[in-house]
């Protein structure tokens, strides 16, 4: 039963991930990426990490992809221009490098073998995650809050300009 669900979800995930990189229109790519995240959330639930699954949808599919969609809408990117690679050698070099990484990954996975999924379902609950977050991982948690603070202040600092600079810009460009 679980195997069937896993196979279906895996096929959908791989398919939508493939569609993300092959679509012409960026909006379609974004929507397929959201579908991929949903499939990832299903994987997390199957592994017993329900909290992470909810976080995946709330944060990734619900906030970050909205940001992506916003940017695409406001920049009015419709994907009508095609991408030209300057030197075809670069493309083949990229394929070779990606193939190398795939080879390493495949060897690594083959060497591990099958791991029994003895997963403790109590580990994925909100209580367990919360307890660990506030005792064992307290310092990284707090540093993450500093990181977010820095990001918020920095974004506003970069964007909000006094009126004088844009007027100054009209007159010369310095280095």
């Amino acid at each position, binding site marked *: 039963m679980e195997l069937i669900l896993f196979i279906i979800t895996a096929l959908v995930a791989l398919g939508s991930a493939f569609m993300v990189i092959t679509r012409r229109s960026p909006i379609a790519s974004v929507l397929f990426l959201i579908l991929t995240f949903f499939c990832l959330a299903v994987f997390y639930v199957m592994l017993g990490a329900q909290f992470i699954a909810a976080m995946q949808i709330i944060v990734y599919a619900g906030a970050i992809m909205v940001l992506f969609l916003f940017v695409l809408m406001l920049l009015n990117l419709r994907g009508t221009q095609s991408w030209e690679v300057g030197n075809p050698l670069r493309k083949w070099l990229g394929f070779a490098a990606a193939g190398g990484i795939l080879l*390493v*990954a495949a*060897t*690594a996975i083959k*060497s*591990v073998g099958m791991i029994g999924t003895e997963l403790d379902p109590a580990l994925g609950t909100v209580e367990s995650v919360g307890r660990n977050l*506030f*005792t*064992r*991982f*307290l*310092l*990284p948690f707090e*540093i*993450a809050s*500093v*990181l977010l*603070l*820095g*990001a918020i*202040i*920095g*974004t*506003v*600092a*970069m*964007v*909000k*300009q*006094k009126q*004088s*600079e*844009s007027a*100054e*810009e009209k007159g010369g*460009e*310095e*280095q």
Partner: protein
Amino acid sequence: MIFNPTDLLAVLPEISILVLTLLVIMLELLITRRVLVLQIVTLVGLAAILLITCFAGLGSHGGAFNGMIASDGFSVFLKALLIGVTMMVIFTSREYLRGSNVRYGEYTGMILIATCGMMVLVSATDLLTIFLGIETMSIALYVLAGIRSGRARSSEAAFKYFLLGAFSTGFLLYGMALIYGATGGKTNLTEIGQVISELKDMPVYLFAGVGLISIGLLFKVAAVPFHFWSPDVYQGSPTPVTMFMAVGPKAAAFAVFIRLFGSALSGLSADVWGPVLWVVAVATMTLGNIIALSQTNIKRMLAYSSIAHAGYLLLAVLASANPEVHVTASAGLLFYLTAYAFMNIGAFTVAILVSRSRKDGDYHIDDYQGIASTNPWIAGAMAIFMISLSGIPPTLGFFGKLYVFSAAVKAGYITLVVIAVLNSVISVYYYLRIVVYMYMRPAAEPKTVLVKEYSWAIVVGICAVIIMLAGILPNQTMKKAISGAETKVNPTQTVIKT
């Protein structure tokens, strides 16, 4: 148990920097917009934090917060260095940003947050803390690189830095995940070291993990072949930010290198990362020096020279994997980082001085022609910086290279040291070219007085004095560095509370 109250002493510097950040931002918002007041508050705060750091370092040494960070002499040394660097950057920024639309309070807040991230990074002994420190530092720096967002160059610099930095963080994280899996679920560096020393056959993805982590870290220090962002970002950012960027992240990232590669992964050095870093170090030094030869923009030249210095520092990392030389190599790294910090800050500040004296504010090398006749003190200071950067005695730079190279020789990397010395010789050309321009060329036009702003002159003076004094008496600094390196929490001291 949650945490030991004494652990708070270990993070007291970071907490106080955060308090200062919020204070400065609130101050600008609510009370005053006068930049001088903000700057004085920041500098006084930073001086207090320096005292707090040294005081916190007097406590017991060991792990803190369940092994997430370490409180030891190594991190205290680097934290003090970072605070000194930040003070000088703040000192320089006020006059530089005068007339631009950058809000000084937020600018200072971002610099302080970057410093906080770096301080976390230098004391991090866990993969999680390393990642968070790198991200905090990087995000603050992305913002700072682009903070003059009205100027195209600044936005270009921020954009490049952000894109490439985000990618490299992705590699870093993937490497951390692979190492986590390979060691059976350990993120603490000491535990990783233990697991690796007990492993009989290395799983392939441990190698992959180490490789990916090194990609992320090598990007941060702008080593070849991940250096392409460095000259453009250094050139485009506002120069105080460039100064900060050239010194701080390198110091913090090399601290991570020593803790990660020197201690935890030292067992793998012979087979896995030793040869790779060897090649990277050679390529970095050589490429950095050779490309710097043809630069005509002083900021780009200093950027490529930073790349070359990162190559020299990688020698210290390679040497530290050898357990006998570990302490000497770490101490050498600390010493070199101190020298490097002051040299670069001084050089960049003189660059600001010279560029601001011209109407168009260009950073061309030809501006330095004949400065010695009009401003002998500035020229003398710049000469000291250039001589120190190229490693000519009796400056601090020379002793830094001496200690690092001798540690590498003791660890057995003789060919590498020979290549490094040859590279130092090559670098003499472009460093001393500036000195030649200053002293032996006539001035192109009647020069006006350079020193319009006293704060820049103060910074230049401080750096020059430190370099000369500490260069003549290197032992004092070296003693501090060695004591710092000795108390570094190393793999035999496992202090992890669960």
